[in-house]
C-alpha cells in the first residue's frame, strides 16, 4: 500500500461488517475469517433474546435464538466469541441497548480473562434507548431508569474505560423508520442532549470531566441513496455538534467537539426485486459518507446486496467489504483535503438543513426534550407520518425505484436461484444446542457466588450506585443475561412505548384507495359490522415500521384496526383476536422466526376454536412462504409487495372468501 510514487494518504475509516448468528462458536469462526480478509474492526450482531434480556430457554425466546445475531448468555459464550481475537488490538462495535451495561460487563470480564485491562479497550456500545422507543423496539425498561443506566455507563467509562464510546446516538434507525434528513438531524441532537444533560446532572461527574464526556459521545448514521443530500447532512451535523459543544456545554477544545460517527448504509432502500442493483446503491451510499473529508465517517459497515431476501452468506458480506477496500485503497479519495469546501451549492444546502433541524430541535426541547417527546409520542407520530408519505410516493410512482416501480422488465438473475440457495439458513438445531450449553453452564457454576452477585447488583442499584462494577462482578460469578435483566426488571419495571399510529387519516385518497374503501364498506354491510383487522407483531422483533404502515393503510381504506404494538406472544394475539372480534389477522415478523411464531398462532386459534383467516408479512424466503401457505396462511407478503392498496384489496378478498359472502 505504501507505494512511494503515490501521494500521502489519509488513514481509512474502520471497516466493519454487522454480523453474528447461530452460536458464539460459529460467529467466532466468521469474525476471524472476516479479519483475515482485511476487515479492521468487528460489529457484533446479538440475537433478540440477548438484546432484550432473556435466557435462551425463556418462553419469549422461542424461535428467536441465534436468528438475527449471536446468542450470548453468559461469560463462557463471550469468551468463545472472542477466542483468538486479542481484545487490546480490536475495535469492537456492539449493537446492544437495553442490556448494554451487561454486555459491556461481559466484554470487560472477558478482556480481564485474556489479561487485557479495561483501559485498553476500544469500541462502542450502541446504548441508545430513545431510538429503541421510536424505531428499533428492543427496549425493556421505562425511559427514566433507561436514561440512568446510560448515564451510569458514561460516568463509569470516562475514567475506567477511557477509549470506549459508551453511547452511540443513532439516527440510523430513525431514517429506517421514515425520518427525513431534517428529522434525523433534529432527533439525534435532541437525543444526545438528553444523554448529556442526564450525565451533567450527576454528582459523580464534575464539570472538569464534562468536556471529556462530550468527546466520548459518538453517533451512528444512516446513508441513503440521495447521496448529495446525505453528504450535506453529515456536514450539517458536524457543524451543529461543534456549536452545541461550545454553546451549551462550554467545551473549549475543538478536538473534543469533533463529530465522530459510524455508518451502516441504508437497508430500507434495498430491494427484493432485481437485488443485484443493490450493489450499486450500496456503493453510492458508501461514497456519500466518505466523500467529504470534514464529515467523513470513522467506521463503516455495508449491508449485503441480498438483505431484502434473507440473511446474507459470508461471500455476500465479503463482496460488501471489498467495496470499502476498493474505495479506500484503489481510488484516490483519501489523497485530497475536503473536496466540497467552497461549494456554494453545498454550503446553501447545509445551511437549509441546519436551520430546519434547529427549528424542529427547538420544538422538541420546548416540550421537555427527547424523553418527553417519546412519552407524548410526538417524535414517533412525525416518523410514522413521514414513512406513510414515503410509501405513498413509491406506490404512486412519484418516487422512482428502479426494478420496483419502474423499469421492472428483467432477465432472470443468475445470482438468485429458485431454491433459496442465495441466502444463509440458520441451522434449526442452533436453538436447542444453545439451550444445552446454557444448562451445562448453569450446572457447573457456583450457585452461592451467583446468588451473592445478583444480591450485590440489586443492592447497588437500589442504593443508587453505578450499574457497571456489580455487573462485571456478576459476569465473573457466572450470572446469565436473563438473571441480570430480571433483577433490573424487578427494580425498574417494564415499559411499552406508544405506537405512534394516530387517528388522523390521509386527506387525499387516490382512485385505487377509494375503490377499496367502497369494497370495505360493502363487505361491512354484509358482515353486519365494519371489517375489523388485528395487526399483530409476535416475538421479540421490534422493527414495527411495516406493521405500523399496514395499520395506517387499513384504517385509510375504512377498516377498524386493532394494533397493540410490539412483542406480543402468540397466546396474546389469539386472545386479542377473539376478544376484539376481528374478521382477519395480519402478522408482521422480520426476525426470521416466522415459521415457529406463525405456526404457534395458528395452533392457538385452532385450539380456541377461532376461525379467522391469517395473512403474514416479513422477510420470508419463498420456501418458507410455501410452508406457511400449506399450513393455512391465506397470503404471504414480502418486501417486493410495496403496493399497500393492493394488499388491502386482497385482504377484502380473503375475508369475503372466509365469510362466504363474496
Amino acid at each position, binding site marked *: 500500500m505504501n507505494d512511494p510514487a503515490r501521494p500521502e494518504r489519509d488513514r481509512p475509516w474502520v471497516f466493519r461488517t454487522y454480523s453474528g448468528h447461530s452460536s458464539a462458536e460459529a460467529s467466532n469462526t466468521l469474525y476471524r475469517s472476516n479479519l483475515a480478509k482485511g476487515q479492521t474492526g468487528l460489529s457484533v450482531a446479538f440475537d433478540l433474546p440477548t438484546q432484550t434480556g432473556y435466557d435462551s430457554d425463556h418462553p419469549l425466546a422461542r424461535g428467536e435464538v441465534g436468528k438475527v445475531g449471536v446468542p450470548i448468555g453468559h461469560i463462557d459464550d463471550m469468551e468463545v466469541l472472542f477466542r483468538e481475537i486479542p481484545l487490546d488490538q480490536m475495535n469492537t462495535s456492539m449493537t446492544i441497548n437495553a442490556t448494554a451495561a451487561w454486555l459491556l460487563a461481559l466484554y470487560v470480564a472477558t478482556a480481564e480473562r485474556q489479561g487485557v485491562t479495561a483501559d485498553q479497550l476500544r469500541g462502542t456500545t450502541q446504548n441508545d434507548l430513545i431510538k429503541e422507543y421510536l424505531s428499533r423496539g428492543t427496549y425493556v425498561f421505562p425511559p427514566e431508569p433507561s436514561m440512568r443506566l446510560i448515564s451510569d455507563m458514561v460516568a463509569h467509562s470516562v475514567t475506567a474505560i477511557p477509549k470506549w464510546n459508551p453511547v452511540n446516538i443513532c439516527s440510523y434507525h430513525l431514517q429506517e423508520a421514515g425520518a427525513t434528513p431534517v428529522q434525523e438531524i433534529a432527533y439525534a441532537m435532541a437525543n444526545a442532549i438528553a444523554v448529556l444533560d442526564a450525565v451533567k446532572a450527576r454528582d459523580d461527574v464534575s464539570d472538569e470531566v464534562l468536556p471529556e464526556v462530550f468527546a466520548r459521545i459518538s453517533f451512528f448514521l444512516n446513508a441513503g441513496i440521495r447521496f448529495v443530500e446525505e453528504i450535506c447532512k453529515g456536514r450539517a451535523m458536524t457543524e451543529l455538534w461543534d456549536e452545541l459543544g461550545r454553546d451549551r456545554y462550554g467545551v473549549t477544545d475543538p478536538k473534543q467537539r469533533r463529530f465522530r460517527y459510524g455508518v451502516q448504509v441504508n437497508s430500507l432502500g434495498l430491494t427484493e426485486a432485481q437485488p443485484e442493483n443493490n450493489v450499486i446503491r450500496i456503493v453510492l451510499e458508501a461514497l456519500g459518507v466518505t466523500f467529504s473529508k470534514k464529515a467523513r465517517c470513522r467506521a463503516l459497515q455495508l449491508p449485503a446486496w441480498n438483505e431484502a431476501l434473507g440473511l446474507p452468506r459470508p461471500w455476500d458480506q465479503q463482496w460488501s467489504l471489498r467495496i470499502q477496500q476498493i474505495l479506500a485503497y484503489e481510488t484516490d479519495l483519501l489523497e485530497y483535503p475536503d473536496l466540497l469546501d467552497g461549494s456554494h451549492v453545498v454550503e446553501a444546502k447545509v445551511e437549509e438543513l441546519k436551520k430546519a433541524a434547529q427549528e424542529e430541535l427547538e420544538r422538541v426541547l420546548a416540550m421537555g426534550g427527547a424523553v418527553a417527546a417519546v412519552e407524548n409520542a410526538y417524535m414517533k407520530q412525525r416518523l410514522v407520518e413521514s414513512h406513510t408519505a414515503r410509501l405513498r410516493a413509491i406506490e404512486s410512482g412519484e418516487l422512482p425505484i428502479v426494478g420496483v416501480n419502474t423499469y421492472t422488465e428483467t432477465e432472470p438473475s443468475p445470482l438468485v436461484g429458485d431454491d433459496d440457495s442465495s441466502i444463509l439458513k440458520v441451522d434449526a438445531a442452533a436453538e436447542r444446542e444453545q439451550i444445552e450449553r446454557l444448562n451445562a453452564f448453569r450446572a457447573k457454576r457456583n450457585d452461592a457466588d451467583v446468588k451473592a452477585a445478583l444480591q450485590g447488583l440489586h443492592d447497588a442499584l437500589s442504593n443508587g450506585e453505578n450499574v457497571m462494577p456489580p455487573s462485571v462482578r456478576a459476569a465473573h460469578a457466572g450470572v446469565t443475561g436473563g438473571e441480570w435483566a430480571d433483577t433490573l426488571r424487578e427494580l425498574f*419495571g417494564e415499559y411499552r412505548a406508544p405506537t405512534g399510529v394516530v387517528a388522523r387519516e390521509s386527506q387525499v385518497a387516490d382512485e385505487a384507495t377509494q375503490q377499496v374503501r367502497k369494497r370495505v364498506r360493502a363487505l361491512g354491510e354484509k358482515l353486519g359490522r365494519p371489517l375489523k383487522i388485528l395487526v399483530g407483531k409476535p416475538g421479540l422483533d421490534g422493527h414495527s415500521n411495516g406493521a405500523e404502515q399496514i395499520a395506517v393503510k387499513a384504517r385509510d381504506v*375504512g377498516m377498524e*384496526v386493532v394494533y397493540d404494538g410490539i412483542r406480543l406472544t402468540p397466546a396474546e394475539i389469539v386472545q*386479542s383476536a377473539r*376478544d376484539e372480534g376481528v374478521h382477519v389477522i395480519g402478522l408482521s415478523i422480520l426476525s426470521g422466526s416466522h415459521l415457529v411464531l406463525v405456526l404457534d398462532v395458528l395452533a392457538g386459534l385452532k385450539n380456541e376454536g377461532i376461525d379467522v383467516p391469517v395473512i403474514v408479512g416479513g422477510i420470508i424466503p419463498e420456501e418458507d412462504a410455501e410452508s406457511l401457505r400449506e399450513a393455512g396462511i391465506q397470503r404471504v407478503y414480502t418486501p417486493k409487495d410495496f403496493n399497500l392498496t393492493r394488499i388491502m384489496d386482497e385482504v377484502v378478498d380473503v375475508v369475503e372468501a372466509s365469510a362466504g359472502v363474496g
Partner: protein
Amino acid sequence: MSSRRARALADLGERLLARERAAVAPALNLVDDRRPEARKEAAALLAALEEKTLLGGARRIGLTGAPGAGKSTLLGALVQRFRSRDQTVGVIAVDPSSQRTGGALLGDRMRVRSGSADPGVFIRSLAARDQLGGLAEAARASVTIVAAAFDVVLVETVGVGQSEGEVADLVDTLVYVAQPGAGDLLQFMKAGILELPDVVAVNKADLGPMAERTANELMAGAGMGERTTEWVPPVVLVSAQEGTGLDELEAALESHLESLGPNGLQERRRRGRDAGVRVSLERRYGSHGLAAWGGHAKLEARLAEAQDHSGFALAEALGQEIESALRGGGSDL
C-alpha cells in the same frame, strides 16, 4: 327467530351469567351486528341480561381524560391491581373520534401488560361509527354484556366534549385523568369537567410541583361544580409509571361507592338506564316521532313505572308504541 335460534340465544345468556369467558366475544359481536335479524336477537339477549344485572352485577368504573394524560398506563396499573386480588376485569375501550371513511385505529389501550395472555382480563375496543348517539348505544350494549361475566368493568375513553357525559351514564364511578399543567381552573370549568367526575386523578405525580399545582387548582374547584349529591370529588396524585398514589386512588373509588350506598347505586344505575332509553328512542324516532307519541313527559312517566326493568326491553316496547303512533293508530294527539 327460529326456535332453535331462540334456544341458542337463551343459552348464550345463560353462559354469560355463568361467567363463561368464551361466550363474551360472540355476544359482543352479536350486539354490534347491524343486520335486522341480529338486532332483534341482540335486543332479546340484552333485555334478558339486564333484567338480572341492572341493579347488581359488576362494579363499573369509567376512565376519561385528554389524549396523552396517561390513561393507558393508569388503566394497566388498575387492571393489575384488580387481578392481584383475583377479580376478573372486562375493559371496553371507546374511541369517539369519527372518521370520514369509517376507518379507525384501535388498540394500544393498555401500556402495561403482563406478557402473558391472562384469561381474567378481556379487552374490546369500540370505534365511533357514523350516526349520532350510536356510540353511546353500542357502548351501553357492550358494557351490559361484559358486566354479566366479569367482576369489574372499566370503560375507557378519550375525553372529547359530550363523551364524558355518555360515559358517566354507563358507570358507577367516573374517574377523570388530568394532566399536570394542562390548564388552569378556568379552563377545567369551561370544559365542564368539574361537574361529572366522581374522582379526579392527576397523573404523572413525578412531575412534582406542576402536578401539585394542578391538583390544588382542581381541589379548589372540585366543590364548585353543580352536583346533585353532597359528594365532593377527591383529587388524587398518581404516577402509574412509578406505581405511586394507586392506593389512594383505589381508596377514593371505594369511598365513592360507599357514599352512594346501596340505594344511591341503584338510583345511579336507573338514571343511566333512563338516559340510555332516551338516547335510543331519540336516535331512532327523532324528537318529532317522540312528540307524536306523547313526548318526554309520557316517556318519563313510563320510565318511572318500570323502574327496575331492563332499559333494552323498555326501549323495544316503547319503540313499538311509537311506531304504531306514527302509523296513526292510537295516537294521543
